[in-house]
């Protein structure tokens, strides 16, 4: 059962990712990415990381992607034009090379053995919170600083008279 679910969500994720790349209009790409995110969250649930799964949806789908969609709508973008610049051939070189790279990585990764003895742990909010506010308190505080800086940067960049 769980294998079937994995296969299903993996297929959804891959399909969505490919769709992100092939869509001409960036809004469709964004929507496809949301599907990808949801699938990845579902995979998180399969790994008992429920908290992260939910957080992933809230942060990514609920906030970041809304921002993307918002910006796309704000700028009212047309579909991508097929630009005929000097780098056009890269697309056709890139796909086989990417596949080759995937093959190489897969071959390497295939030999990875997860230690089956250690018990799977549940990513509950409690477990994550406990770790986050003890072992990782400094990075956690620093991320707040990062967010603040990003906030100010965004405000400055988005100003009209830049």
């Amino acid at each position, binding site marked *: 059962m769980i294998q079937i679910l994995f296969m299903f969500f993996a297929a959804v994720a891959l399909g969505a990712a490919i769709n992100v790349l092939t869509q001409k209009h960036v*809004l469709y790409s964004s*929507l496809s990415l*949301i599907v990808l995110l949801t699938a990845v969250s579902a995979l998180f649930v399969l790994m008992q990381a*429920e*908290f992260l799964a*939910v*957080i992933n*949806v*809230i942060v990514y*789908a*609920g*906030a970041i992607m*809304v*921002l993307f*969609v*918002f910006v796309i*709508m*704000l700028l009212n973008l047309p579909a991508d034009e097929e630009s005929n610049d000097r780098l056009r051939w890269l697309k056709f070189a890139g796909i086989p090379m990417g596949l080759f790279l995937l093959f190489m990585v897969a071959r390497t990764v295939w030999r990875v053995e997860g230690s089956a003895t250690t018990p799977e742990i549940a990513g*509950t*909010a409690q477990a994550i919170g406990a770790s986050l506010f003890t072992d990782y308190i400094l990075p956690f505080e620093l991320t707040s600083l990062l967010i603040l800086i990003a906030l100010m940067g965004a405000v400055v960049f988005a100003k009209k008279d830049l």
Partner: protein
Amino acid sequence: MSEFFNSNREIILLFVKMIVIFGGVMTALAYTTLAERKIMAFVQMRPGPNRVGPFGLLQPLADGAKFLLKEQTVPGNANVFLYYLAPIVSMIPALLSFSVIPFGPDLKIADTNVSLLFIFAITSLGVYGIVLGGWASNSKYPLMGAMRASAQMLSYELSLTLSVVGVLLISNTLSLNSIVLSQQGTWLGFIPRWNIFPQFIGFFVYVLSGIAETNRLPFDLAESEQELVAGWHTEYSGMKFAMFFLAEYANMVTVSALATIMFLGGWNGPMFGPWWLQMGLPTVWFVLKISGFLFLYMLIRATIPRIRYDQLMRFGWKVLLPIAVANVVLTSFIVAIS
């Protein structure tokens, strides 16, 4: 046959619950629309719908039939795929959140240890329906409505989420059922142990953000009739419009249910009578509380005028959010020292 029931009891029970809850919810949603119209009429001193059935009680059915039979129009130059997708995207999250709401001690479909976050995650997806609908219509009012809606919902989601953190700090769990259970009993024998008493600031923020989050008056800038015709669903008609409409009411019910669970003790209430009554009473209490909440919603809609968009934003960011944060700080301080 009985073997089948015995071996698959869990699943069958689950299906029964699903049918009961969703059937009940859908019916309730339909009648909420009627209730709203009636209450509005009452406030405005007019009869309201009273032609279809006694006291207009069959009005929702008539409405539904009308929606189904209407012509399906699609604006020219609209993005057809997204145009059809939008109401579905709007509807699904709205209904999905009911799957974790406990209507009674046993009357719930699922209860995970992150139910609350699950609801927030699901409702945060609801904005896509609005945004896509507005954009796909390829029309100026829907677009503006959609932009307003997305900005507004993003902004108020913050205070909404932060307002319940106080409750979480007190009840120490993210499971909705456990939160309800933590509110059992009374203080001093007569005050129910509801979170609304220690968390009245959070409740206040929650109610205001909830109204904004569901795009209801006085925060219905996204569909304000006088400015934007009907906002993001201006170009929708028939069943697609009905789905938007139902999604909005579903969201209202979700927000009310959450408020009830978080602040008003959920299905807790006085228990009496024989066992069959005791089985049904919690749900009755729960529904009653939600109804009271919905009544508040409608009363507010009927009495308070719409505010301006900049006021809305300023209120969200500069008033509600600081209050919510202050509440979190205060609560955590008190929790820490006690």
